[in-house]
C-alpha cells in the first residue's frame, strides 16, 4: 500500500529526476556527450582519405621492350595505381597472396614483336577481389590505362600506314568513346558513401543503449512494478521525452557534422531530415521500451537490441542493393527503424527529393511510433493496477 500513499510528483520534479539520473551515471553522460562525437569522428577519420590512391600492383615484364616499358608507365600514370616491378612470377604471386600488392600483371615475352606483326598479344592481369572495393577500383583503372595505351598504339600504327589525319586514325582505333559520370557523388568519394550510412547505424545503437540504461535505472528487484504503480503515463512520457530530446539533438549534431563539417552535399529539405531524425529517435525508443518492459532486465534487453541493431548496417541496402536481397532480408530490414531513416537521408541529401517522395519512409517510422504508444498502453494496463493483476492471476 505504501506505493499509493506517496504524493504524486510534479512534472518539474520528474524532469529533475531524469537530470539527476543523467548526472550521476557516467556512462549515460558519456553516451550523450563526448562518446558519440568521438566515435563519429573516428569512423570518418578511417575513411577520410575518401579515395584510394596509389594501390600497389606488381608487374612482371617478360618482354623488356620499349613498348612494355611504355605500357608500364601508362599504368603508373594512373592515380589509382602504383607499379612495383617484380622480377620473377613466383615472387609476384606471393606478394598477391599476402596482400602486399593488389594486382599482378604479366607482360608476355615478345609482346612488341607480336604487336608489330599484328598478332594481338595478351597481357594477363589478376586483381585481388577478396578486397572488393580495391579489386574493382584496380580493374577499372587497368582497363582505362590499357584502353588509352591500346588506342595510342593503334593510332601510331594507322599513322605509320599512311592514314594522314589523326582524327580519322583515332576513329579507327576508338570507334566509340565513353563518358562516364557518377551522379550524386561527383568524385566517387567513398567516405561520403559509406560514412553517411555507417554513422546513422551507429547512432541507432546508441539510442537503444541509452534508452535501455535510462529505463533500467528504474528497475527495483528486476521489476518496474513500483515505478509504474503510480503516474505511469507521466513517468514514461517524461523519461522518453527528456532522453529523446537529447538524442534528437545528437542526431541533429550528426547531420550538421556530415553536411557542414565534412561538407558533403545536402540538396534537400532540412525540415524533412529533422523530422526523420525525430521519428527515428522515437521509433528506436519504442523498441527499447518494448524490450525493457517485456524482459525487465537490462542484460536481456541489450542482447535483443544487439541482435536487432548490430547488423543493421548490412540491411540498410546502401552497400548492397535492396532489390537483390532475398525476401527475408527485405522483410527483416523493415523492422529496423534506421533503414527507413537512411532512405529519407539519401533522398534528401543526395537527390534533393521533394517532401512527398519521403512520405512513405516517414510513414514507416510513424508506424513504429504508434507501435510505441500501443505498447506503452498495454504496459500501463499491466503495471498501473498491480492488485487487479494479482487478483486475475
Amino acid at each position, binding site marked *: 500500500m505504501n506505493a499509493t500513499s506517496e504524493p504524486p510528483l510534479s512534472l518539474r520534479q520528474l524532469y529533475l529526476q531524469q537530470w539527476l539520473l543523467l548526472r550521476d551515471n557516467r556512462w549515460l553522460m558519456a553516451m550523450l556527450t563526448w562518446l558519440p562525437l568521438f*566515435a563519429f569522428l*573516428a569512423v570518418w*577519420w*578511417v575513411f577520410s*582519405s575518401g579515395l584510394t590512391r596509389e594501390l*600497389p600492383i606488381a608487374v612482371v615484364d617478360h618482354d623488356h621492350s620499349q613498348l612494355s616499358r611504355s605500357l608500364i608507365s601508362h599504368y603508373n600514370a594512373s592515380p589509382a595505381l602504383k607499379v612495383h616491378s617484380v622480377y620473377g612470377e613466383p615472387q609476384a604471386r*606471393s606478394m*598477391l*597472396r*599476402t596482400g602486399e600488392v593488389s594486382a599482378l600483371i604479366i607482360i608476355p615475352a615478345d609482346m612488341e614483336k607480336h604487336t608489330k606483326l*599484328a598478332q*594481338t598479344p595478351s*597481357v594477363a*592481369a589478376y*586483381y*585481388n*577481389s*577478396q578486397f572488393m572495393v580495391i579489386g574493382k577500383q584496380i*580493374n*577499372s583503372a*587497368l582497363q582505362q590505362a*590499357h584502353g588509352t595505351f*591500346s588506342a595510342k598504339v593503334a593510332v601510331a600504327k594507322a599513322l605509320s600506314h599512311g592514314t594522314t589525319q589523326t*582524327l580519322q586514325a583515332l*576513329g579507327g582505333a576508338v*570507334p*566509340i568513346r565513353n*563518358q*562516364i*559520370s557518377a*551522379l*550524386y*557523388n561527383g568524385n566517387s568519394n*567513398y567516405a561520403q*558513401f*559509406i560514412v553517411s550510412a555507417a554513422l546513422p*547505424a551507429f547512432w541507432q*545503437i*546508441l539510442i537503444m543503449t541509452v534508452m535501455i*540504461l535510462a529505463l533500467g535505472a528504474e528497475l527495483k528487484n528486476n521489476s518496474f512494478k513500483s515505478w509504474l504503480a503510480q503516474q505511469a503515463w507521466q513517468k514514461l512520457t517524461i523519461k522518453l521525452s527528456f532522453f529523446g530530446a537529447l538524442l534528437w539533438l545528437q542526431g541533429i549534431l550528426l547531420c550538421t557534422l556530415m553536411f557542414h563539417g565534412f561538407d558533403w552535399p545536402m540538396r534537400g529539405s532540412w525540415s524533412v531530415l529533422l523530422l526523420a531524425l525525430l521519428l527515428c529517435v522515437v521509433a528506436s525508443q519504442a523498441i527499447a521500451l518494448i524490450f525493457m518492459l517485456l524482459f525487465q532486465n537490462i*542484460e*536481456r534487453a541489450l*542482447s535483443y537490441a*544487439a541482435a536487432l*541493431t*548490430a*547488423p543493421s548496417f*548490412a*540491411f540498410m*541496402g546502401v*552497400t*548492397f*542493393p535492396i*532489390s*537483390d536481397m*532475398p525476401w527475408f*532480408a527485405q522483410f*527483416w*530490414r523493415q523492422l529496423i527503424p534506421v533503414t527507413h531513416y537512411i532512405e529519407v537521408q539519401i533522398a534528401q541529401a543526395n537527390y534533393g527529393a521533394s517532401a512527398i*517522395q519521403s512520405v512513405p519512409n516517414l510513414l514507416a517510422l510513424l508506424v513504429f511510433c504508434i507501435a510505441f504508444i500501443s505498447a506503452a498502453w498495454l504496459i500501463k494496463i499491466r503495471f498501473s493496477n498491480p492488485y487487479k493483476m494479482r487478483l486475475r492471476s
Partner: protein
Amino acid sequence: MNTGLLFRIELRRIMRNSALTLTVFGGLLLYAFLYPQPYLNQTPLQQPIAVINADGSQLSRQLIRMVDASPLLKVTSQVTSIEQAQQQLVEREVGGLLVIPEHFYRDVLMGRSPTLSYAGDASYFLVYGTIVQGLASTSGTLAAQVKVAKMVSDGIPLALASTLHSPIQLNANAAFNAHQGYLDYVIPAVFIVILHQTLLIAVGLHAAPTFTSQSTLLRRASPWQLVLVRSLLFGLIYSLMSSFYFGVVFSFYGVHHWANIAHICQLLLPFLIATAGLAQCIAVMLPKRGYATIVGLMTSLPTVFVCGFIWPLSSIPPAINIIADLIPAKPMVLAMLKLNQMGANFGEIQGHFAHLWILAITFSSLALALLHKQKAKATPSLNKVEKLL
C-alpha cells in the same frame, strides 16, 4: 584454491549465466543465419537503367538490345529527356542512364568516334559499379564489332579480323573471390569480428567486478589462477564456436577453404587467448556486468572498418592503424583472409601470427596485473566484513 576446483566452479558459473549463454550460443547461431541474409544473391544483377536514344538508327537499337541482353543490366524505360531520366533516378525506378547521341550511327560510319554518355547513381557504389561495368563492356563489344565489320569491308578475312581489332589485349581476371560475390567478400572477415565481439561480451558478463560471486572468487583464488582458468574455459568454448563458424557455416554458404585445419587451429590459439585477455582487462573496468554488451555493441562497427578488408590499410590514417593493432580481430582477419581465402601459406602470415602472440601475452599479463590491483583493493574491506561476522 585448487585450480581444478576453480575450473569446475567457473564452468558452472558460465553455464548458469543465462545472459552469457544466450549471447554465446544464441547470438552466434542467430548471426550465422541473420548476417548473410542480405548478401545471399552474391552479386547485383539486372540493374534497371533508362535509355535516351537521340539517334533512332539501326545501330542505336542494336546497342540497346545488347545492353538489355547483358546480365548486369535491364533497360526498363526509354525516355526523351535527361530530366525525365533523373526523375526516375530519384524515384529509384532506375539506377543509371545511357545517352545515345544524335547522329551516332553516321559518326561511327564516318570514323568520327561519337561519345556515348552514361551515368549511374553513385549513392549506391555497388549498383553504380555494376551499371558502369555493364555499359562499358557493352560499348566495348559494339566498338569491336564496328572495327571488325570495317576490316572485313576492307578485305581482311573475318577470322583474322576478329583477333586483330585490338593491338594488345588485356585479359583481366579476378583472383581469389573469382565470381566477385559479396557474401565471399564480407562473411570470412565479419564472422571473425562477430566471434571477437561476442567473446568480449561473454567474458565481460562473466567477470565484471560488481558481480557478487566475483568478489568471493577473488578472495579465494589467486589472480593467475583466474586468468588461466578463464582463458582456458573461454578458449575451449570459442574453439568450439569457431569450428562451427569456419567449418559448418563457411561450408554452408560455400565460402572458400584454402587453409588446412591444423593451420587454422594454430592461428586460433593466440587469437582466442588474446581476445579473452583483452576482454578480462575490459571486464575489470566495467561498473555492471550488463555494460559488457554495450562495449561489444558499440565497438563492433568501428572494428569492422579498421580491419583492412573494406578500406585499404594504406589509406587509413597511421594513428588509427596503431590503435587498431591493439585489437586482436585485426591481425586475425588479415591472417585468415590470406590463409583461407587467398591461399597464402603459413610462412607468409608469420607476421600476423607473431602479432597475435604478442597481443595474447600482453593482454594476459595486463589482466593479471589488473586483477591483482582489484584484489588488493577488495581485500581490506572484505577482511573488515569477516571480522564483523
